[in-house]
């Protein structure tokens, strides 16, 4: 081997040092609001592949329910917002490794996730649903027998259907994100797609004629802002923030703008 093990090792060490140097040590798990203010910006992970809650706008900036809530976070802390696109699969790793300060990305509140992160009180309500064309007759989970059901990997529909898929005879197909999941439905590769309550509107706009409807509501869920465990100061501020924007109508305005529905009564904990 021409280059020898010494040079290879040296290159590896240089690479590791470079990576370490490029990542400043903002990994404090006990992150406070003051840390963010001192940093001068708040880095927020948002989903940019889901209609209504997070898409990439024509100007290259995220737009949707979640990005608008994120912009309010920046407004009330008093620092600019830096958006980072995250997916269902990488949002928790990004948060835990310190690459983002918080997750505002259709983050459904579950106890399993609460082992890794801390959730704020709910700022949005959604449901894990299965959507399909009007011609598809499905009323209960038993009607799913033999059907091809696409779901985003790790999403609520995946978590609910995977344990029962075999006994119910469901052909469950896991895609890397919701966008590919919906694309598979449109191209006829799946019979039903796991998504939210209101996405069928977007589907009917893009693929008219099939009259996509919500066929099954698997579970109602609420979205919370996710922060690292131990960041109690930041969590307290976020809960206060959400209470405020619920009270003064700003969150209702966001709900009407994106979901075309008034804000429902959200539980607190």
């Amino acid at each position: 081997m021409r280059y020898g093990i010494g040079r290879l090792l040296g290159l590896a060490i240089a690479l590791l040092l470079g990576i370490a140097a490029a990542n400043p040590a903002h990994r404090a798990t006990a992150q406070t609001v003051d840390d963010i203010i001192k940093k001068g910006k708040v880095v927020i992970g948002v989903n940019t592949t889901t209609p209504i809650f997070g898409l990439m706008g024509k100007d290259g900036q995220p737009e949707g329910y979640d990005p608008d809530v994120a912009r309010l976070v920046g407004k009330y802390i008093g620092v600019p917002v830096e958006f980072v696109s995250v997916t269902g699969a990488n949002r928790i790793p990004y948060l835990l490794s310190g690459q983002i300060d918080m997750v505002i990305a259709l983050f459904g509140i579950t106890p399993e996730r609460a082992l890794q992160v801390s959730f704020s009180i709910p700022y949005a309500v959604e449901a894990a649903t299965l959507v399909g064309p009007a011609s598809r007759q499905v009323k209960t989970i038993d009607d799913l027998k033999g059907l091809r059901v696409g779901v985003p990997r790790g999403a609520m529909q995946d978590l609910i259907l995977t344990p029962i898929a075999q006994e119910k005879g469901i052909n469950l197909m896991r895609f890397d994100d919701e966008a590919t999941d919906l694309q598979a439905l449109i191209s006829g590769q799946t019979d039903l797609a796991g998504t939210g309550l209101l996405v069928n509107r977007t589907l009917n706009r893009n693929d008219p004629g099939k009259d996509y409807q919500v066929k099954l509501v698997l579970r109602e869920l609420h979205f919370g802002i996710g922060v690292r465990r131990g960041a109690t100061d930041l969590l307290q501020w976020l809960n206060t923030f959400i209470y405020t924007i619920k009270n003064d109508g700003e969150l209702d305005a966001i709900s009407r703008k994106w979901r075309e529905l008034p804000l429902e009564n959200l539980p607190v904990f």
Partner: protein
Amino acid sequence: MGYVFQFGTVWREFDHLLLGAWLTLRLSALAMVFGLAVGIAGAQAKASSSRLMRGAVQVYVEAIRNTPFLVQLLFIYLGLPSLGLRLTPDEAALLAMVVNLGAYATEIVRAGIEAVPKGQIEAGRSLGLKPWQIFRFIVLMPALRTVFPALGSQFILVMLASSVVSVISAEELTAITDTIVARNFRSFEFYFVITGIYLAMSLAFQTLFAGIDRALFARWADRA
């Protein structure tokens, strides 16, 4: 850093990872066999006297070698249904890998065929061998022997490329791992271990190829 490594979670799911490794091996092995067949056919077509045939193969090879595998895969799975061809995720993954490998194999085998000395072919003709005999014994076997290392590398690359088929919901090692990690969030532990599994599979294939090399081509002992 505050992160606690939990490799125990990986060993608990190890039977799922082994299933994933098996699916990857099966998909890759099928792709290698069919991809090589496509490559040999393509190389023969490249040597044809028909300009249309040569041009068609050239278009195929250039299109595949200059576009990303992921795009080819998405086109086959999500795009072809618009033309009426609907494939299951596993079928689409295999087809994409065969089409991809076939293009690279065409070029590799063609180079091997061109390296066969013309005198050998003339000798075969003067001995009265039929064309298919000439192709099989005088052209193809020496050609494959010459390019076997290059083919082997390309096969391994295709096996590693199989890790992206999760995007169309085909199940293999990376897809299964993504699903597990989506539930328990142990990215570091799981991806570290499957990196090791891919490495092991790659080395296994290399050993297999070396064995095939010795078994099939040992007769041509003059190879360096």
